[in-house]
């Protein structure tokens, strides 16, 4: 049973290219459809919790399913299965990157990737900002839902980071505490 779980999450880790949300259908097919470890409702709960907590969705799911099936050892084994493919593949790629990255040809190719990476990070940042300011995806924005508290937190966060070189973790945590207090007061 435990070994089966390990193999399931190994597959999830191996075939989920492109981060977080790409892994959801894979996890669903392994956990709900093939092995019947969670019902569809439990799976939906799992995704909600995975989004609410830090960490990649696939690791959160591995820990959650593992804990339910076999306690802490289950959690550890499922998580290991999930990160093992990434570990092996990225170690190989890292080795190749540091061996060849100073070649002129490789530099030319890498330089064309960098603007795209900046764009990808910007796009991810904007999606999170829309969620913060309107509590909705960008396709479902309703202007009257604009949240002034989150907007003020965002602006003060930017000022704290850029003007005062504040610690980013402090900014995230601080906006959590100040924002929650603000909502409780108003």
């Amino acid at each position: 049973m435990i070994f089966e779980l390990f193999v399931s999450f190994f597959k999830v880790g191996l075939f989920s290219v492109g981060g977080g949300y790409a892994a959801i259908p894979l996890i669903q097919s392994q956990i709900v459809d093939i092995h019947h470890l969670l019902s569809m409702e439990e799976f939906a709960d799992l995704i909600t919790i995975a989004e609410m907590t830090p960490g990649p969705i696939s690791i959160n799911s591995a820990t959650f399913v593992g804990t339910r099936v076999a306690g802490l050892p289950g959690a550890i084994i499922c998580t290991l299965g999930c990160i093992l493919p990434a570990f092996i593949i990225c170690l190989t790629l890292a080795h190749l990157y540091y061996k060849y990255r100073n070649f002129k040809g490789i530099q030319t190719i890498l330089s064309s990737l960098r603007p795209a990476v900046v764009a990808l990070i910007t796009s991810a940042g904007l999606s999170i900002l829309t969620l913060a300011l309107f509590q909705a995806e960008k396709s479902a924005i309703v202007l009257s839902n604009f949240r002034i508290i989150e907007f003020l937190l965002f602006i003060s966060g930017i000022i704290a980071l850029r003007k005062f070189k504040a610690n980013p973790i402090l900014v995230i945590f601080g906006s959590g505490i100040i924002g929650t207090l603000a909502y409780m007061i108003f």
Partner: protein
Amino acid sequence: MENTSKKDSKVLWQLFKSTFSLSAFTFGGGFVIVSLMKKKFVEELQWLDESEMLDITAIAQSSPGPIPINASVILGYRMHGILGSLISVIGTTLPPLIIISIISMFYQQFRDNTIVAIALQVMRAGVAAVIFDVVLNLAKNIVKTRNVMYIAMMFITFLMTYVFGISAITVILICAGIGVINLIIDLRKDGNRI
């Protein structure tokens, strides 16, 4: 000899400490941790330069598996070989492992708690601020290259991902293709045949 091993363990400890604390605060997907890593390892510790961090991000995004894990493997390898990789992967994995293990015991209460819901919602504003701070610096440096093609690529790929919803991996593959074409043009210019 003893000095070097002391230095080694100092690097490994810093690596563990950093990946652990970054992982504990990465609400909202892989690019959040990449932004935090850039601030920590490029700006604060100055272990890497900025272009290296962008390369690591591109590799992490294009390989299978969660982006934070992928980025930690490469970063750890850069700092201290396979041992470094292991240490930073453990650092990145432990926070979600611990948090979810605890939450899975009473997840109903956690899910239905309004204060938890509010805190998580407002924290997104802070996360967005951190990403924008990083993005502003990165974009500034791309503009500073004064390379019209790179600047145009940054805007076009942004439209592709944000407006048209084209997947990150497709965008990276297209840009890699453009890079290969560039390389061929460069080689021809140098008078070399391939």
